[in-house]
């Protein structure tokens, strides 16, 4: 309990730092540290899958994205005169936020006792799926439609990012060209870490059916390895008008939709799995979805096209 209180104080302290830091770079660094501490909180809340996702996605990749953005925005960061809020408005905003926080705290304290839960129905039907990780069972079987639409949302966000390209570089290479010394340190560490990261990513994907892990965490690690390789100059992001890239991105949701519609024929409802083939169908969905999401995440971090296509 004392450990939990200390951890909560640390998380809130990092959040206060993120809000009140002077420079944007300091705030982003505080945000990354906050995300890692939040992953510890998730472990304490008995949610290791969420802890993995928070550490990789919420703190790792989001931190990388925000650090790059804060570096590009550094010339514009100084607040202009007349732009910072007066003290009266700040006090009013603080009062509003205290009110909102108090309302949420009241809800937390007044949560119903005994707590309603869906764990027993999840546990009762998991054996039929051949999965031992209940969160994967929920993501891929009970709430598979959420996961399906989530992959579509990722694609829509990527479309939105790509549509921001200026006309002359439409369909071109995303992000700036990273030049690194081919005999330098960054290249060396990328050559060393990327294979290790790929193995770790595939392991987390495979073990997600029986232990904490799964496709989103694995896709994030694969995307991070791609980003590291591009930063070291080992590979370059392909131009976004390439057909094979677009097929790779769409393959995951397409297979998901196909299995969903086949469920109508085979088992009577959209995304229903016939009982003996459930594990096989889930695996058939998961592999393309992991690759698609990894590519989508890496391209979301790379940003809109900035160099003209060949």
């Amino acid at each position, binding site marked *: *309990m004392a450990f939990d209180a200390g951890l*909560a104080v640390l998380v*809130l302290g990092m*959040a*206060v730092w*993120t*809000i009140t830091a002077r420079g*944007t770079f300091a*705030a982003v660094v505080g*945000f990354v540290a*906050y995300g890692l501490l*939040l992953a510890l*909180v998730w472990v*304490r*809340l*008995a*949610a290791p*899958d*969420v802890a993995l996702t928070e550490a990789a*996605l*919420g703190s790792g990749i*989001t931190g990388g*994205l*925000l650090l790059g*953005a804060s570096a*590009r925005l550094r010339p*514009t*960061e100084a*607040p202009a005169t007349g*732009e910072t*809020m007066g003290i009266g408005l700040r006090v009013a*905003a*603080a009062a*509003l*936020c205290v009110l909102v*926080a*108090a*309302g949420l*705290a009241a809800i*937390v304290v007044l*949560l119903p006792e005994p*707590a309603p839960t*869906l*764990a027993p129905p*999840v*546990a*009762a039907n998991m054996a039929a799926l051949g999965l031992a990780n209940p*969160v994967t069972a*929920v993501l891929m079987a009970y*709430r598979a439609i*959420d996961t399906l639409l*989530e992959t579509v*949302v*990722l694609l829509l*966000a990527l479309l939105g*990012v790509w549509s921001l390209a200026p006309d002359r570089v439409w369909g071109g290479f995303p992000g700036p060209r990273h030049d690194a010394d081919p005999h330098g340190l960054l290249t060396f560490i990328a050559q060393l870490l990327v294979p290790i990261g790929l193995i770790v990513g595939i392991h987390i994907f495979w073990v997600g059916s029986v232990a904490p892990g799964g496709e*989103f965490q694995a896709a994030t690690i694969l995307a991070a390895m791609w980003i590291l390789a591009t930063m070291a100059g080992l590979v370059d992001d392909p131009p976004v008008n390439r057909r094979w890239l677009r097929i790779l991105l769409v393959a995951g949701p397409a297979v998901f939709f196909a299995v969903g519609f086949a469920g109508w024929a085979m088992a009577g409802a959209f995304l229903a799995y016939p009982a003996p083939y459930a594990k096989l169908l889930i695996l058939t969905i998961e592999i393309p979805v992991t690759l698609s*999401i990894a590519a989508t995440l890496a391209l*979301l971090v790379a*940003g809109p096209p900035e160099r003209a296509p060949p």
Partner: protein
Amino acid sequence: MNTATLYGLCGAVLVGLGLFGLIVHPQPLRKILAFNLIGGGVFLLFGVVARRGAAAGFGGDPVPQALVITGLVVAFAATALAVALLLRLVQEIGRRPTLRSDG
């Protein structure tokens, strides 16, 4: 007060802090950071509901946990789109976007 309630209160305070940062900061990137804080607080509230639903041999109700994972991924997608919009806008107008009406 057990662990779950403590982290629930932590999540409530995070939402309040994030809302304050969203209102007070003039720079859009700080607003995006604060918005992510609000999201983190909301996910913590989900996690508290999940922890309180521990049953059937699991440490927590897996359905809210799966919802949080989905939410984390979608929150990253939204952040990436917001950052791309901001960078493109700064590239177009040459300075940080403000609410002043002189363009």
